Each structure stands twice: as structure tokens, then as C-alpha cells.
């Protein structure tokens, strides 16, 4: 426990210059971090890389059929927090998560819980499109195949078509499903990755800067898609673009050096930020 306190001290010590710039630093989150109809409930989540603490006591809900965006300067821990929501951090040696993260009331860091099926329920789309070096069809069919979601080829075909339809990619690729997914354009690859993710029908989709490698047109298409996906999924998206956060999300959370500073309705955050750090960041004075 002592080392933990020390690490926090160290982390807050490192923060002092930012505090000077941003005024008073508080670990308490400004705004209401709960959702009306929560799907994921996180309380007092700490994430450690070895002895370094990356996330300090973050509490945040992700509601059903909503898009929560996470913004903040580089290194503020938003991606780390996102990756702890489906235990992708397990693959990083020395990473440790404490606190409570529940999916539909079930503790996901419970010792008895297998992270593998969890990740089928909480899917993830990455910053850089990462289609497998397989055909477009096989990319989408990968998840359903390993989870045995379909009983025969016809069902699988249907699922693949359905997923590609939902990802808005079907019309562009329906004639070349057997061609490698790596041959698509960047925006198409990212939509393929989204199709791949929704093919296993997750409840939550985590998106880690999904448009940062895309051009503005592809970005607009993906943003439109995110808005449509909200009908069926809960979405948490990390983004560096505040315009994007404003366009796609219902709620926005501002992270700063591992703390969740402020969270609230997106239009509220962008028009009337309560915390000085949030205001500085969204007005471009810091970050």
C-alpha cells in the first residue's frame, strides 16, 4: 500500500507544472459519470504499468445505445483505460488493474472470468486498420468461425453479408470477397475491421482513435457509421479530434495525466466546461 501511495505522490509530483498552468488540480471528477441505463460500470479503476500508475481512480459508465468519447492530451491514459475495458491490457507484461469494472453487473476482472469470451462481448477497433492477411470474407468470418456462431456455410455467408452491410462496406466489396483485405484502401480497411468486430455481435465496441489514420472523407464515412451502430451497440471511442467527439458522441470524458477530470453531456462539455483544465484543452490553450 505504501508503494502505491508513493507512486501516486510521484505521479502527482510530475504533474505539478501542468497544475501550475491549469490551476487547482483535483482528483475528483467534475460532472456526473453515471449513465441512465449503464452497460459497463467502472468504479475507482487504477491501472499500473509495473510501479508506474497510468490511471488514477477513474469512475465512468458506458450506457446502452450511447457513444462515450474520451478526449485528452497524449499520454493522458485514455487508451490505457479503454484497453482495460476488454482486458486487452492482459497481453502487456507488468500491467495491473484494480478497482471495479462490470459488464452487465458482472465483474470482468473476477479471477474466475476468462478474458477470451469477454473480448467477444466487448469488441475493439484499433487506431491503425489491422485486417488479417486473409480474404475480405475470411476477415469477417474469422470471429464467427472461432466462436462457432453459425451452423453452416449459408448462415455464415448471411452473417458476413449482414456485418459488411452494417459496416457500410457491402456494396463496395460484394464482388471481390475473395480478395485480400489488405488490398483495400485505408478507410475500407477500417470499416472491414468494424465489420469483423460486429460479426461476433458484441455488446460494447471500443474504438481507439479509429479515424486517425484515415483521410477526411473516410473519416466522415466512419463517423456516420458509428452513429448508426449506436442503435445496436454501446460504443466507447478515444479520439484526438474534438470535432469528432462533438459529432459522434452523446457524452464526453476529459482525461488528464491519468485522471478523469470532467465528464458530461457532449454539448455541455464543449459549450460550458466546468473545470479549468477541460476549458484550456478544448479551447486549445493546452494539449
Amino acid at each position, binding site marked *: 500500500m505504501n508503494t502505491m501511495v508513493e507512486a501516486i505522490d510521484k505521479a502527482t509530483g510530475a504533474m505539478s507544472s501542468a497544475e501550475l498552468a491549469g490551476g487547482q488540480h483535483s482528483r475528483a471528477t467534475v460532472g456526473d459519470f453515471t449513465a441512465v441505463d449503464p452497460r459497463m460500470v467502472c468504479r475507482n479503476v487504477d491501472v499500473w504499468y509495473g510501479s508506474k500508475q497510468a490511471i488514477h481512480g477513474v469512475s465512468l459508465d458506458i450506457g446502452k445505445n450511447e457513444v462515450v468519447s474520451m478526449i485528452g492530451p497524449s499520454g493522458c491514459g485514455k487508451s490505457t483505460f479503454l484497453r482495460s475495458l476488454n482486458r*486487452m491490457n492482459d*497481453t502487456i507484461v507488468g500491467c495491473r488493474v484494480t478497482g471495479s469494472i462490470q459488464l452487465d453487473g458482472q465483474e470482468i476482472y473476477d479471477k474466475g472470468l476468462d478474458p477470451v469470451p469477454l473480448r467477444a462481448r466487448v469488441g475493439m477497433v484499433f487506431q491503425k486498420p*489491422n*485486417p488479417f*492477411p486473409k480474404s475480405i470474407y475470411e476477415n469477417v468470418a474469422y470471429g464467427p468461425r*472461432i466462436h462457432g456462431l453459425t451452423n453452416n456455410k449459408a448462415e455464415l455467408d448471411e452473417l458476413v453479408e449482414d456485418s459488411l452491410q452494417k459496416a457500410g462496406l457491402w456494396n463496395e466489396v460484394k464482388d471481390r470477397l475473395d480478395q485480400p483485405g489488405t488490398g483495400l484502401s485505408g478507410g475500407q480497411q477500417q470499416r472491414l475491421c468494424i465489420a469483423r468486430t460486429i460479426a*461476433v455481435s458484441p455488446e460494447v465496441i471500443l474504438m481507439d482513435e479509429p479515424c486517425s489514420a484515415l483521410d477526411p472523407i473516410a473519416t466522415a464515412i466512419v463517423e456516420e457509421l458509428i452513429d448508426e451502430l449506436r442503435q445496436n451497440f454501446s460504443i466507447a471511442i478515444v479520439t484526438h479530434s474534438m470535432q469528432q467527439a462533438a459529432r459522434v458522441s452523446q457524452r464526453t470524458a476529459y482525461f488528464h495525466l491519468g485522471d478523469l477530470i470532467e465528464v458530461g453531456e457532449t454539448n455541455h462539455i464543449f459549450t460550458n466546461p466546468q473545470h479549468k483544465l477541460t476549458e484550456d484543452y478544448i479551447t486549445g490553450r493546452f494539449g
Partner: protein
Amino acid sequence: MYAWILILTLLAVMAVAYQLGIKRAISSVGGLTQINALHSLPSYYGLYAALWAGIPALLLMGLWIGFQDQIVTSLVTANLSPDMLEGQSSGRIDLILNDIKNLATGNIVSATVTPEVQAAADQYARLERIATWSMWLAVLAVALGGMAYAWRRTGPQMRARNRVESIFLAIMIVFSSIAILTTLGIVLSVLFESLRFFDMVSPVEFFLGTNWSPQIALRADQVGATGAFGAIPLFTGTLMVSLIAMLVAVPIGLMSAIYLSEYAPRNVRAVAKPVIEILAGIPTVVYGFFAALTVAPAIRDLGALLGLEVASESALAAGLVMGIMIIPFVSSLSDDVINAVPQSMRDGSYALGATQSETIRRVIVPAALPGIVGGILLAVSRAIGETMIVVMAAGMAANLTANPLESVTTVTVQIVTLLTGDQEFDSAKTLAAFALGLTLFLVTLSLNIVALSIVRKYREQYE
């Protein structure tokens, strides 16, 4: 006079030229304060002068040393009386010349020294002395001349850096073409000797014949040595031993690569990977006697236990040991390509709820497959060309068999046996070695080309 003293002298001249070049460059712009007016850094002017002093002189020296003996010898030969050379075979003349040279340098001579030979020897010694001294003079003159040329050229406008760099570029091109030309030379010499062989033995017999018995009659009345050059048993033997080796090396190498790159904790990997790679560093002769003295008897005993008849030198023993030897080729290359599969592929798979083994089976190995195949092909060409193990453990008998428990022979083994011992170098027997070597070379070359193109194709995928 010793050549190395001349070389040291040349180096000294180059050092002086270097210093003078720097001085000249600096003074040409009016001292250190004006040094920015120079096109290049002063040291480039020094190098420029040193290279001009050294390279032409060294080239001249190399040519001189290469041709001096030939010229002196031909002068001496021209002075010998015609009746001494009349009717002599060329070998005989060489012997006389050799005696002359030995006499001149004070070595033991083979025949009694006639006055004429003594005179020729004196002349030879004198000519050699003159030639050596004139080489010194010429080389030093060229060195100083080069230095003077550089001195005259040096000035603020001269692009010393560009010139020095292009000289170094030329030197690198020359050196790299030495490697290429050597390869080309080996290929051509093997090719021409093989053509001579195919003049004596038809390619049809060589490539399709099943009887290999390369002993040919040294005397006309010799019995039982007719010479048969059907290389099929050799090819099948090579194929079988290589196949057994790959059956050992591919699963072991691949599995250990997957374990090391995907599952092993960092400290295990840090120890295990170098240890596996040590296998590649064991001399093949050690593998050879390990195969012949340990593995082969063990297999024979095991066979006896099971009621099988195993030859004391068997394809199985050689293949097993060769397989062990090439494990690191498979495992190390596979490990590299598996590690080269981007982490984002793994993340993408895990994020879909795949387990680690599903990820490895369905994403990582397929993604790395071209590279793995490339590694395996390189290992195959290594196995086909391997000699020592099969010489010691596979046997000499050219059996055409599919039974790995029998003794077989391989292309490389036969090349060794054809060429060891006293041989005539223009008989079909020895020339057969060139034909075998050419075949082997072509097979491994094409395997390497295929392997490299597969590896290259794979590399392009993620860049």
C-alpha cells in the same frame, strides 16, 4: 629487395601526401581563418593527395610483380642456346628453367650444373635485381608524380570531397565485383568441366541411368572396372537423406520457433534461442562422427530388437543427425518471421475473442507462412549440399532403394570419393564430379532463388 618494405615506404609517402594536401589546401585560401572558402573540409584534400600518391603506385606495383617473373624468364629462355631446347618436351624445358631459378636463388638443383645453366642463372639473378630496382624507382616515381598532380590541382575550387567519395565508391565496386566474379568463375569452370564430361558420357545416361560405378580402367587389361555413370541412385539417396532430415527439422524447428516467439517468457527465450543456434555452430564433422559412432549403432540395435535388418551405415542415421543440424535454420528464420508479424494482428485477433492458440494457428502462422517456407527451403538446400555427415554415416554404396534402413550414397559423398586420392584429372571419373557438382549447384541455386523470392514477397506485405 622485399616488397613489403616498398609498401611501407608507399604508406609513408601517402602519409606525407596527406599532410601536404591539407597544408596546401589551407594555404591556398590564405590560412585557417579563410577555411570556409574551401569547397571541402581540409582532410578531404589530404585524402585526395594521399590517394593520388598511393593508388596508381600500388596498381603499378601489382602489375609489375605479376609480370616481372614472366618477362625475366622469357628473356633468359631467349638467351639459352637453341640446341639445349631442341626436341625437348615442354615439361623438360620447365625443369631446366626451374633449375636455373633454383641456382640463382641458391636452392638445391635437380641436375648437374652445366656452365651454360650457370651462365643463365647468373643472367637470371642479374635481371631480377635490375627489375626489382627499377620497380622501386618506377613505383616511387609514380607515387611522387601522383602527389605532385594532386598538389597542382588543389585549390579552393577543387571538389575534393566529391572526388574522394567517388574514388571510395570505385574501390567498393571493385571489391564487390571480386565476390561476384569469383562466383561466376566457379560456375563457368564447373560448367566447362561438366561439358567435357558430357562429351565422354551422354547426359541421358548420367541423368537417367540407374547404375553408378565410376571405377574406370586405368590399364587396358584391368577387369571389373568398366565405369557406369547413372546418377539416379545418387539423386534418390540425396533426396531420401534430405527428406528424413526435413522430417526431423521442420516439426522440431517450427514448434520451437512458435514456442519461443509466442509462449516463452523473456528469460527462457534469452537462454533457449542462443542455445538452439549453437547447433548451427557445431562443426559438421562432429555431427558426422556422432552419426556414425552413436546414432547409427543405436538404430541398428533398435532395429535388431524389433527384428529389422539395419545396415551399419544407414540413410536414417545420416538423415536424423542432419535434421538435428538444420533445426536452427528452420527455427531461427521462422522465429524471425513470426516476430515480424505485427502485434496489431495479434491484438486484432484477441479483440475478437480468439485464444492464443487460435490466434497462432489461424492468424500468425498463415501470415508468417511465406517466410517460414522460405526458411525451410533454405534449410533444404543446406541439407542437399551437406557432405560430412553423409560421408561418415550414409555409406558409399550406390543403392537404388526406398528403404531408409539401407545404406545409400549421396551426390556430395560421391564427389568426395571421386576426387580423393591420386586421380587423373581428365578422366571421366574425375570429370563426373564436376557434372555432379553442377547438378547440385543448380538445384540449390534454384531452391535459394525460390526461397529468397518467397521471403521478399512476404516482406513487402507489411511495409
